[in-house]
């Protein structure tokens, strides 16, 4: 069993390395890795902690990117709407805080407090998780559905189709995807593209 575990770790590390090299990461249909990352309240958070969840809205975001900031209220609204339905938002800050001090733990705590975030805001310390997912920018969303085999990636991309004006949004990609999963339907739009800030290494 130990050898198996070691092998898995090696494989995961290896795939993380290749991911970084070819810039790919997960596709829709892949099983997403769990993690154990520090939250702004000092606790460690894993997906496996959420026994009753049906899935997750994993959101790579940060304090310092104008696009991420433009979406802060909408990310909070997603959590308010879907956490109780079994799809909580799990936000992960992927930047190297030596490069972006505005994204350090203290700054994350302050931002979460001032904005009243109700979702966990985790820091990807050591930057091991985002490359496995293949996140390249903030904000970058991965919707996962809990299955017997693991957390399956169901959607990758943007929150909606208007970063400038929440009121002018025509298509709510993330809401549509989660609504479909809640109804047991197929997610129609599985991947979208949006501009974001490069994750700082």
């Amino acid at each position: 069993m130990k050898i198996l575990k070691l092998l898995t770790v090696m494989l995961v590390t290896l795939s993380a390395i290749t991911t970084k090299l070819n810039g790919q990461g997960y596709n829709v249909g892949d099983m997403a890795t769990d993690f154990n990352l520090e939250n702004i309240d000092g606790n460690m958070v894993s997906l496996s902690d959420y026994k009753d969840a049906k899935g997750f809205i994993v959101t790579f975001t940060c304090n310092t990117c104008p696009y991420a900031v433009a979406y802060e209220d909408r990310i909070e609204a997603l959590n308010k709407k879907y956490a109780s339905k079994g799809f909580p938002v799990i936000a992960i800050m992927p930047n190297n805080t030596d490069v972006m001090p505005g994204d350090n733990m203290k700054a994350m705590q302050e931002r979460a407090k001032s904005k009243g975030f109700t979702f966990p805001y985790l820091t990807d310390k050591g930057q091991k998780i985002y490359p496995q997912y293949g996140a390249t920018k903030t904000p970058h969303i991965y919707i996962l559905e809990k299955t017997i085999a693991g957390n399956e990636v169901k959607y990758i991309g943007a929150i909606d189709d208007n970063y400038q004006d929440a009121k002018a949004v025509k298509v709510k990609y993330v809401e549509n995807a989660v609504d479909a999963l809640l109804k047991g339907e197929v997610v129609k739009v599985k991947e979208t593209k949006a501009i974001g800030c490069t994750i700082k290494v």
Partner: protein
Amino acid sequence: MKNVAVLVLLILMSCKDTSTTNEIIKPEIVPNVAQLEADRQFEVYDYDGLAPLLNKTDGKVHIVNFWATWCAPCIKELPYFEAVNEKYKDKGVELLLVSLDFPNKYDTALQPFIEKNNLKAKVVALDDVDQNRWIPAIAEEWSGAIPATIIYSNDKRQFYEKSFTQQELETELKQFLK
């Protein structure tokens, strides 16, 4: 937009008329929207307006860099692009800087940046919220992170989602120069 300025002016004037105190009104502190727009050293396009600039068939080698004033790695590499443009412009190289700044920052961030850094290359701003349409149209492999760069000449085209050093940029450019 001119109408807005007129409206602002009208409101100001009406304030003055009804004002019973000796309040001094300083119209010069009201931003003159029309004037700001007239002072811009860049044009604003949606994707359909931008597309022809990304697909010229004039035999020149075009470097198109997608950037924004808020994007630190973009700002870092901009001087390399400007330097390469200066160095190779006699060889038919043309640089286009496509800003992805938010429209509400055009006059407060983008225009001041162009002035302060004395940018020589042509700058345009892309204002089109339907990113899911134009990102894959510009380059299928583009995830949407910036900086991103295209080098093309007629039908030959290469897309880069990465930061450049000046040397790296010259190396890539030389593949396009005869």
